């Protein structure tokens, strides 16, 4: 127990941090619930997105002038790479399924499916089934 003559400053500081966190979150979320905040945030986001579009258009023009690939050129290559990866994955999965001869292959041992819950839970389940059946 903390001695009042010699308080535990470590715990005091941690309590202060917790209170600051709660107060900060509460203040912040209350402020962000206002329609004014929503209007401001969305206007700021739109402006930022518009600036990014302008910058992207300018960059694309300069890159094209320098005969360098643009973002859309690289995106197109990435899409083709993804399509190739997808085909490889499909082929790998098909090969794996064929080799494994179903789930019993490749180290996968099929368990039996007869497990029951512990005895107490079985009684509760039976009671529940009976009561639900009575409601139908």
């Amino acid at each position, binding site marked *: 127990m903390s001695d009042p003559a*010699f308080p535990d400053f*470590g715990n005091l500081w941690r309590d202060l*941090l917790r209170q600051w966190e709660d107060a900060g979150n509460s203040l*912040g979320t209350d402020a962000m619930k206002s329609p004014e905040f929503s*209007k401001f945030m969305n206007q700021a986001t739109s402006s930022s997105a518009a600036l990014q579009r302008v910058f992207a258009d300018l960059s694309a023009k300069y890159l094209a002038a320098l005969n360098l690939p643009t973002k859309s050129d690289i995106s197109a290559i*990435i899409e083709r790479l993804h399509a190739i990866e997808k085909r490889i994955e499909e082929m790998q999965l098909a090969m794996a399924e064929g080799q494994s001869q179903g789930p019993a292959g490749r180290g996968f041992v099929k368990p039996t*499916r*007869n497990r029951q819950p512990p005895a107490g*839970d079985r009684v509760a389940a039976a009671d529940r089934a009976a009561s639900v059946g009575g409601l139908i």
Partner: protein
Amino acid sequence: MAVAQAAEQGVAQRIKGEVERAIQRSIKGLEYLASPAPAVGLTPKDIIYRRGTLNLYHYRPLCDDVYRMPLLLVMATTNKAYVFDLAPGQSLIEFLLRQGYDVFVIDWDPPRPDEKGLGFEDYVLDFIPSCIQRVQERSETDDVTLIGYCMGGVLSAMYAALHADGPVKNLAFFTTPTDWSQMKLMTNWTDRRYFDVDRLVDSLGIIPSDVVAAGFDMQRPTQRVVGNIRLWDNMWNDQFVKSYRMFERWGNDTLPLAGEYFRQIVKELLWDNKLVNGGLKLGGQVVDLRNIKVPVLHITAEHDHLVPQDCAKALIANVGSDDKEEVMLKGGHVSLVAGPNAIKRMWPKLDQWLGARCT
């Protein structure tokens, strides 16, 4: 006199302890900066299906005899599924396997640019049914238990409502948002007077993970700063640091979202709250939670800053099941599923409920 001496000794001990911790912080702080990210998701599994953003895992059983009905966990689309499998001894997957369940998990990769058009229909009418079919084939069992976490729960509920006579015989949910009008911050930020979701989606295609992560962070604005301060304060505590690093890694692994999917979340759920108000149509059919008649369990978190209780409790209120139960446990949105409190509280409750219904 003796009391004063005892008090002085107590103070001396405390000061000594703090000095030792301060030294440990410096040493371990350097180790922290130099060490690699923690290994997560280590429970052995097979990837049995993969298509673009979708992955289906089958975990290797740990028991010779398992429950008849396999479990299919549907992860939230905003994060990776290894939160279910953080570390040995701190893994819901490992726990379920040891308790004798046959466990499958739907995990997500970042959607590719050509997947920007994926919407609710793709997740609910294509991905989930395709995975269920593979679970049935692999387990040689027709009946399946579906477990959804957060948005994974929303998608699972939509699927179950549209396939009331289908193979899903039990439904369990973790912190699943249902009444989206109660997500006050999200609904304010996406206020249709100011938020042009069409322009955002049409210009970006894929909603970046930064945007998604910012949406989460802003709901607890001081979290990152305080988290770093607490990390420094507890740098001497190896267990704390290990746990912190795992959760931080997972939190930073936020996924981008397909644009069309994001558009539907905003319009159908945040703006029109159609899960509760009705009118949500997928594949020409109306999603009505009252069509769900199978046993339902919804585990919610008392201190969930992302899915408030008023948002979550509407799920049980709206499903048509007779056997339905909501359990509110101490913890937050993430700690409910992983971490020390989950081990003590959520996991045993889930096991008890599932065990009685997966035979």
